[in-house]
């Protein structure tokens, strides 16, 4: 498969501070590649190096076959980009922004169609500052796509949005890929990464702590699944010898059985065999958030 991005041993230091330390990964064409990590873990620095917005202290980077360090403007005209903390002039009109951003590329799509697709047709004459947060996001996505990019960088585009606007943004991101672009998505929302990404790199202290599919990360780093129920039964030590069970913890009437694989079926069968049928029996599978907290140690890590 062709590769949209190749990063080898990327390093970026600020004086004594190492922001990015020996990061390597690649992004295949057509995938949504997620980058997650605590604040200060080097996500944004890495993405800025990929767009040639920041110089690198070491390593090699290839974006659509070009080195963004020496061909920054060229790379930026080929890609789409939604950066953190970047804005438009307050009084620029929606159509003016679309027209302006389309003018930098020969291969630009018709911005009127793009406005239609992103639901901006009714707002073409509105000024930027008068748009709602969701409308501004849609405009930003449309601007990132108006040059028909093969690769789009989206850095924390849902931060600060309310839950319904976030869901809408997810649909936008999925739609970007449907239209054939590769997406690099930086986020600190685990549900977002889990729902959207094909593969995820977990950044921690300037390094890639893990890189896998969401399911692979959860399986390798999420820890045990848990079967939870309540019972008045006194002695449950026999649960420890049920297949797939790794441990049993008790808090008053509440029992937590941790285990792997088919632990739920085995535990339920064993309980039933002893005539115990708890009404609140339920199963908790580890999520990407559990895997993330296990990987980065659970307390940020500035």
């Amino acid at each position, binding site marked *: 498969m062709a590769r949209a991005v190749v990063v080898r041993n990327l390093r970026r230091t600020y004086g004594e501070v190492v922001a990015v330390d020996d990061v390597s990964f690649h992004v295949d064409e057509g995938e949504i590649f997620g980058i997650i990590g605590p604040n200060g873990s080097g996500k944004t620095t890495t993405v800025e190096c990929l*767009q040639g*917005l920041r110089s690198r202290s070491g390593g090699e980077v290839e974006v659509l076959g070009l080195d963004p360090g020496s061909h920054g*403007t*060229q*790379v*930026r*005209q*080929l890609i789409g*980009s939604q*950066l953190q*903390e*970047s*804005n*438009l*002039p307050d*009084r*620029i009109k929606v159509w*003016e922004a679309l*027209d*302006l*951003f389309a*003018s*930098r*590329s020969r291969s630009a799509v018709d911005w009127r169609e793009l406005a239609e697709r992103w639901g901006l047709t009714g707002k073409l004459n509105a*000024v930027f500052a008068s748009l709602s947060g969701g409308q501004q996001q849609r405009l930003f996505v449309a*601007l990132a796509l108006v040059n028909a990019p093969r690769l789009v960088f989206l850095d924390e585009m849902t931060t600060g949005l309310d839950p319904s606007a976030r869901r809408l943004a997810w649909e936008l991101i999925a739609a970007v890929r449907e239209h054939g672009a590769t997406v690099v998505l930086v986020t600190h929302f685990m549900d977002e990464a889990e729902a959207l990404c094909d593969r995820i790199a977990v950044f921690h202290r300037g390094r890639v702590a893990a890189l896998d599919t969401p399911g692979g990360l959860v399986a390798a780093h999420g820890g045990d699944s848990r079967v939870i129920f309540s019972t008045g039964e006194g002695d449950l030590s026999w649960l420890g010898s049920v297949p797939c069970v790794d441990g049993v913890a008790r808090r008053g009437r509440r029992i937590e059985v941790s285990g792997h694989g088919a632990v739920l079926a085995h535990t339920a069968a064993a309980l039933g065999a002893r005539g115990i049928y708890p009404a609140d029996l339920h199963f908790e599978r580890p999520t990407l958030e559990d895997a993330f907290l296990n990987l980065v140690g659970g307390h940020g890590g500035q």
Partner: protein
Amino acid sequence: MRATPKLTWIEMKLFFREPMALIFSFAFPFFVMFILAGVFGNEIDTEDPESLEVWRGVGPADYYVPAYVGIVMASMGLISLPLRLATYRERGVLRRFRAAGFPAGAIIISQVAVALGIAAVGAIAITVSSTLFYGTQAPEMPLATLGAWLLGAGAFAAIGIFLGAILPTARTAQGGGLILFFMMMFISGGGPPRGVLTTSMRTLSDFLPLTHVVLMLQETWLGYGWDTRASLITVAFFVCTAAAGLFRFRWG
């Protein structure tokens, strides 16, 4: 690149949507000039040598027209251009433009083009309206006046890029720009004539670019010739601030 003319056109439209810049570029210089012309009129007492010297041999309104043509440039270069650049940097507009692949040249060229356009519109408006209301004279040496205008406007555009590069936030650009603007306006020709300034004020005004731009404009406008010293000083301001501004230009 088609983006530069498009960006220039949009920046021009944005200028006219921004009340603060509009007021300081047009309304304010007009207002002050018409107060001054209204108070002093355009008559000169040819028997009074002191008055002849202070007003440089012409009526006060004639004296002030070239000065206010210069002041429109100063408001553009000291207030609106740095404020625009600093606001764009602070709010991340430059960051977005850069990430979209706009080269630095497109940003600077569009800003300078708008600034020169505004200064030209202001100059024409002041010249025409004062001719209509006070019967002031047209430039005696039109080509030389045009040359002086281009040099002065270029210098203030460069000063604007420089201030926009070194003033970190919109707040400092607005404050710093207004202080520089009022200081220059009052002692570089827009307030009391140079002839009545105290020695220390005159010394201070010699260090201000507007003083020399106004001198260049007045000399050619009133037909006294080309002021080589003032034009060389203006060129020096242009070269130094343009070089420093381009060197210090930052996106974020």
